[in-house]
């Protein structure tokens, strides 16, 4: 990924980033993901989608996976292939309290219920992740392995 190549000649490549488990450091990952996606030839609007999805995945890892423990870190692996970018965001905790596997299609946040005070205003991160990328999967960790969220955003050859 070190030399500038046209999107059509970019070879598969992997970039790894590790950031402290501290809110705000998701922006480092956003910038890295945006740079990789730009090299791959993604449109600007898709890069914005990716940045928000990656940021929300990192925030989930920091808040829920690592429970804001600054002694832990969040690892991110960006794997660029010919036609897609896969992003794995790994925490060092036990992850969120969900069953592993592809996320069920999450319902759109019910803003009417939030406005009536029947739901808390928060809780939109996972919805945004799923809505903004082509694929989203959560994998539970165990004693030996970290939990991670896996995102995939695909290049649309006709549109990019």
């Amino acid at each position, binding site marked *: 990924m070190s030399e500038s190549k046209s999107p059509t000649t970019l070879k598969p490549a992997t970039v790894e980033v590790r950031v402290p488990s*501290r*809110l*705000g*450091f*998701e*922006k*480092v990952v956003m910038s890295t993901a945006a740079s990789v996606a730009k090299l791959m030839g993604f449109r600007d*609007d898709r890069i*914005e*989608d990716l940045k*928000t999805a990656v*940021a*929300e995945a990192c*925030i989930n890892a920091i808040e829920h996976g690592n429970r804001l423990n600054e002694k832990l870190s969040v690892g991110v692996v960006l794997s660029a292939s010919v036609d897609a970018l896969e992003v794995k965001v790994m925490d060092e905790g036990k992850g969120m309290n969900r069953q592993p596997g592809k996320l069920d299609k999450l319902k*759109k*946040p*019910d*803003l*009417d219920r*939030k*406005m009536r*005070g029947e739901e*808390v*205003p*928060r*809780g*939109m*991160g996972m*919805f*945004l992740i799923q*809505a903004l990328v082509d694929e989203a999967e959560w994998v539970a960790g165990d004693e030996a392995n970290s939990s991670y969220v896996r995102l995939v955003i695909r290049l649309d050859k006709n549109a990019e």
Partner: protein
Amino acid sequence: MQSETKARVEQLTSPAGHPVAVLRFEGDIASTSKEAVIGTYQALPKETKLVLLDFTKVDYINSSGIALVIQLLIEASNCGQKVCAFGLSAHFTKVFTMVGIPKYAGLFADQTAALAAL
């Protein structure tokens, strides 16, 4: 790492002659922005009926920041205030629309369009 949220209030008059409080935000809007977003809103005079949210100088809004905007909208609704927003990028206009905010706060490209809607 996060850019501190700054907020200031400006009093304007709509084309229809109504007083409008404009909350101009700058920086990131995230979980650390509660005082800037909610605190600034709650400090508005109680007689305020029209509120504009200016996001022109906001680069980054995450789901926690959106939750603060929703909290503001809940309080505004309870006070019978009308809220509109302007200056969001195309991406964040899409995100705000995805979570349903336009039902409770009109989204406009710029201040002129937002003021005209009040």
